[in-house]
């Protein structure tokens, strides 16, 4: 019976090709837009380091003045002071790794006069950054703790910088200048796809860092600091100057500006939080941390859940695309209803000749499933074109500062999204067809047989 129903379904699709195509197109357009937005939302919302994201924590301690306002969420809590980051880095805890991050910028130059200098922003961080966040290396490695402690001039550059400065060859061991500072390249990163760059708390996508240098070196050589300085009143007036000067005052101040991260195994989480409290109490005794002790230790999963929930652009477009898809499905219902209702006489006859209701339903479910499948296929084509369009819009709107290579993963239709589109296409089409099929299969067998 399946074969017969399949034959009838295919015949029906071929009999009225324009109606069939219109139904498929309606579903495809709706599904295409829906899948485009869904893919962007899905890819952009992917939590990096999925295998250990629950163990990667942003660490924040409330060191603000007593007069500061209450904060009930980590997103509104200040970062960490540099002296606290150094103290926390010095804490020995088995299985726990910690790192820090802020931004700097500089003009990278090499000896070869034929190569133009490149102005670039970069991350200042610690040796654990590379083991905690696992960026892929093309050549070499990150620096070790000893190198960091001695504030050696080492640098890890991105693939883009390596391509620009060294034509893509293995540049490990080469020197690069940032202003008057000479740094030795010890590692070259491969293209690092992060759905959002989380480690600076910016959560922006498609903008990888160009190079990485040790924080000890950056401080010792007074490299510029691109950061927001949350200072106490005493330092508030000169906070902006901390970007390029007053390094010592910054280091001694209560200005919070360093993003601090910890990787803590499950069994150590409680202990780690207690250590933070102990540390704060110790510092309190020294006259610091005037407020009630408050820490935020937030893992990547929770941060992404919060960020994804606040992504107004994606949320609004998700609603719009879902509504649009619903409207397309309603249109498809109308077309299917019109198509099926033209068939009442035939269905009435088939029922009279012995077809059971479920057989009539099966025949039309097969037909609708094929429409859904074809709608899904065409919808994928529409979604692919939509994603390419959205990607090019992003590149264009960034004045071409963002690269195709960095954005592509955020607009990629992977297996999950393809399967999602197919299942959504077929399922929604079937749901949409319930009413037309119900109407049709309830045609009384005698109702149409007397008509001329």
């Amino acid at each position, binding site marked *: 019976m399946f074969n017969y129903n399949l034959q009838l379904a295919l015949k029906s699709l071929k009999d009225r090709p324009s109606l069939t195509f219109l139904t498929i197109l309606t579903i495809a357009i709706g599904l295409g837009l829906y899948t485009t937005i869904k893919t962007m939302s899905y890819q952009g919302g992917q939590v990096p380091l999925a295998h250990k994201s629950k163990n990667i924590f942003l660490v924040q301690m409330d060191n603000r003045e007593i007069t500061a306002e209450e904060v009930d969420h980590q997103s509104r809590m200040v970062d960490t002071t540099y002296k606290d980051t150094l103290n926390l880095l010095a804490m020995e805890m088995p299985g726990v790794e910690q790192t820090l991050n802020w931004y700097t910028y500089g003009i990278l130059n090499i000896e070869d006069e034929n190569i133009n200098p490149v102005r670039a922003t970069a991350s200042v961080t610690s040796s654990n950054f590379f083991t905690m966040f696992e960026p892929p290396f093309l050549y070499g490695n990150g620096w070790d703790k000893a190198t960091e402690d001695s504030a050696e001039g080492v640098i890890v550059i991105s693939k883009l910088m390596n391509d620009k400065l060294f034509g893509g060859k293995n540049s490990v061991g080469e020197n690069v200048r940032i202003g008057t500072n000479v740094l030795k390249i010890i590692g070259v990163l491969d293209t690092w796809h992060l759905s959002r760059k989380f480690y600076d708390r910016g959560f922006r996508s498609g903008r990888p860092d160009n190079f990485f240098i040790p924080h000890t070196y950056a401080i010792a050589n007074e490299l510029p600091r691109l950061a927001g300085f949350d200072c106490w009143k005493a330092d508030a007036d000169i906070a902006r100057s901390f970007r390029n000067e007053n390094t010592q005052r910054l280091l001694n101040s209560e200005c919070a500006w360093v993003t601090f991260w910890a990787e803590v195994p499950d069994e150590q989480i409680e202990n780690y939080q207690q250590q933070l409290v102990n540390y704060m109490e110790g510092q309190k005794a020294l006259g610091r941390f005037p407020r009630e002790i408050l820490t935020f230790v937030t893992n990547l999963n929770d941060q992404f859940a919060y960020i994804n929930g606040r992504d107004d652009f994606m949320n609004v477009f998700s609603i719009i695309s879902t509504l649009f898809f619903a409207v397309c499905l309603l249109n498809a219902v109308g077309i299917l209803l019109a198509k099926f209702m033209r068939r009442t006489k035939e269905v009435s*006859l*088939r029922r009279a*000749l012995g077809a*059971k209701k479920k057989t009539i339903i099966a025949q039309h479910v097969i037909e609708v499933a094929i429409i859904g499948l074809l709608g899904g296929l065409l919808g994928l084509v529409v979604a692919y074109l939509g994603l390419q369009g959205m990607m090019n819009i992003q590149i264009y709107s960034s004045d071409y500062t963002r690269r195709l290579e960095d954005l592509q993963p955020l607009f990629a239709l992977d297996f999950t999204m393809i399967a999602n589109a197919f299942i959504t296409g077929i399922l929604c089409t079937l749901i949409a067809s319930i009413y037309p099929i119900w109407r049709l299969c309830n045609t*009384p067998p*005698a109702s149409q*047989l*007397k008509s001329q």
Partner: protein
Amino acid sequence: MLRMENVSKIYRTELVETHALRKVDLHIKAGEFVSVTGPSGSGKTTFLNLAGALETFEEGDYFLDGQNVKGLSDDKLSEIRNQKIGFIFQSFNLLPDLPLFDNVDVPLRYRGMSAKERKERIEHALETVGLASRMKHLPTQLSGGQQQRVAIARAIAGEPKFLLADEPTGNLDSLMAQQVMELLEDINSKGTTIIMVTHDDQLARRAHRNIQIFDGQVSDIEKAVANDVIRSA
């Protein structure tokens, strides 16, 4: 073989109740050829629809081939229609975009027969109605009489015990009507019970027995003897 006891059919709307059939008592034996006559709107088609298990009824009992049809599920009624009843309609009701072979195939498909058995039955049925050579034609390529013969082939292909014909000659000229009638008589002579609704008194008289329906009430008239008298006259 077919027995109705106190069968009533009422069509209800919010405002009106229409008694299409009132307390029908009827017994049709196996192998009979029964004609059903009556004025338009008297309930002939309703009677045929009930007899063919195309509609349900509210009161009474209806035994078809020994089985009480009342209260059976929709699926069960479909099975009965498919296996025990063949339908012939005034307007032929062939599927216009299917060749004759596939038209005759429709009820057999729903019976779940093998392809081989279906093919044999279809060819035999089309041969019986004299259209074996045209099984790849579409209905629109045939005359009205030929189309009705295809409908008959479709009705007999499953070898049903009953053939229900609703004005089978209503859309045909007299010559073609004659041919169709002869075909039905031939089928009846092989043992198939036939119930035929008609407006044509002459055709009605050719049946073994005539049932008249007037205002939903059936009067069962034994015509066999009278017909014999008419035919021999």
